[in-house]
């Protein structure tokens, strides 16, 4: 097992699920905790929200598109799930993803989640398809700074900021988060995208704009580039996410500078077992390459 420390959290391995993937029900998160170093919840807001009507997901050759529309039971409706998780899992940190439209909104949610016992907070500043939240507020360094700062003022647990690649400069966003004392960066969320059904002659996703977020193998090189750039600019840890479906992809992120890696689309079918199988192969790789300490692998592509 490659144990890692991430912003003060002890992880039994450096892999976790990406928010939104297998992350609504406590029973699913508890199952995930058997395999992952940490588990991340679905993005939770203040109030209950049904999300978009279906179709919310499209799977085709290039990857998976989604426009779930941030469905969630609201923070108070989600607390029982948090409590059930904490009552049964002791060795795997629970990271609560939250979304809001204002710094005060984020701070309020973060505090409620922290009081409920979560081990860390992830700020969703990157959902690519919903109005007034996500990347609409997370594309501006000033907003990232204000939101992060507001949350850091009320929270003691580590705060990660999940950034959008749908911007001309993700590095500025990362630096803004670091300025505001974020404990870590998560990069990247999905890429804004659309799929059109040629027989019905319309966008498939039922979001208002027809736009969703692209995930899966297609976005791996975008994510690796983002992590590589961010790693050069900030000193806080970076969690790599986007398009990881095999162990080599995770190693790419680590070499680019990721201290931990999130897996999303590849967990399709409830496939948590992918995580330990990737970890085993990463350990083999380290042995083969004569690397004893995982830390020596992090960012190693920059030293070459």
């Amino acid at each position, binding site marked *: 097992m490659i144990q890692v420390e991430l912003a003060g959290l002890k992880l039994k391995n450096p892999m976790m699920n990406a928010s939104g993937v297998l992350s609504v029900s406590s029973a699913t998160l508890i199952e995930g905790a058997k395999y992952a170093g940490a588990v991340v919840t679905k993005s939770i807001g203040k109030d209950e929200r049904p999300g978009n009507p279906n179709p*919310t997901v499209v799977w085709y050759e290039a990857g998976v598109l989604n426009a779930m529309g941030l*469905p*969630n039971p609201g923070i108070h409706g989600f607390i029982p799930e948090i409590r059930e998780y904490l009552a049964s899992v002791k060795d795997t940190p629970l990271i609560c993803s939250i979304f809001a439209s204002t710094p005060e909104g984020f701070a309020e949610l973060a505090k409620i989640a922290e009081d409920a016992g979560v081990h860390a907070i992830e700020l969703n500043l990157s959902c690519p398809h919903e109005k007034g939240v996500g990347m609409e507020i997370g594309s501006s360094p000033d907003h990232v700074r204000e939101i992060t700062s507001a949350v850091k003022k009320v929270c003691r647990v580590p705060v990660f900021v999940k950034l959008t690649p749908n911007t001309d400069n993700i590095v500025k966003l990362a630096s803004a988060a670091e300025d505001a004392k974020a404990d870590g960066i998560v990069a990247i969320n999905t890429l804004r995208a659309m799929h059109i059904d040629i027989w*019905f002659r319309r966008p498939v996703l039922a979001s208002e704009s027809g736009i969703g977020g692209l995930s899966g193998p297609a976005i791996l090189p975008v994510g690796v580039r983002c992590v590589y750039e961010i790693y050069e600019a900030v000193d806080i840890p970076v969690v790599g996410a986007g398009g990881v479906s095999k162990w080599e992809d995770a190693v790419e992120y680590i070499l680019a500078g990721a201290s931990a890696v999130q897996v999303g689309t590849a967990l399709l079918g409830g*496939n948590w077992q992918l995580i330990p199988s990737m970890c085993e192969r990463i350990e083999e790789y380290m042995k083969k390459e004569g690397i004893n300490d995982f830390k020596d692998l992090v960012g190693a592509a920059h030293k070459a």
Partner: protein
Amino acid sequence: MISKTSLAQHIRHKVTIENVIDELPESTRRHVRTLEFRNPFTHEPRPGQFVMVWLPGVDEIPLAISRIGDLLAITVYAVGDCSKKIAALEKGASLGVRGPLGRGFTPPKEGERVLMVSGGTGAASLLPLAESVRRKNPVVFVLGARTRTELIFRKRLESICDLRICTDDGSEGFKGFASEYADKILHTERFNRAYACGPEAMMKQVMVSAKNTVTPAEGSLDRYIKCAMGICDACAIGHLHVCTDGPVFDRDTLLSIPEFGVSRLSQSGLREKIP
């Protein structure tokens, strides 16, 4: 590990409705309609599998496959916005479908005496199973409904199996729930295998009766399904997912899940009690 779902199952096909069949008399308040369309999939569905039915601009909902062959059918109970709109479609209208999805029923071994228990529109997913095993297995089909005018598929079932009717109000057949009748005959008649589909409380009763009589059994669950590919967690039950691990689960799996018959996730993901 064998993948539980594949890309081919998630391609949306545009199909044309070839036939529509009203399953209940016009005088009934409930509206249940069967829509038939040519099989657009590369594989023939297995009994118990479902399709995601897309009505562009409205929604996409899971529906059981109620006929298997060159023509496939879905049977929809007009209860929500989308199901009402689907049930209102006429011959020649178009729908998007993806599938066939999920794990279907385990077929009985040849010669096994089989019990099928349905409540309400649950009969839709059991009917193709009854049709597929009719030549190899004696089938007792317990068809439950609130009242005699709400019994669906009666004619099709009468011709292929030993049909036992149950109505909540006693307007025909056994007065009471299908699960009560099933419990009685599981104890008095010999069955090698049982299947159930219908309201979850009813299915739970059948699973308990099956366990008490050491009868292998399976039940098919209904949940709010979004992605249908085991990623969004909307249909989580225990650590399993109805869309890819189900909708059919075996007796012991069902009875081991604390949520079975008790709670489910709403569209938002809020845990709610099952009525």
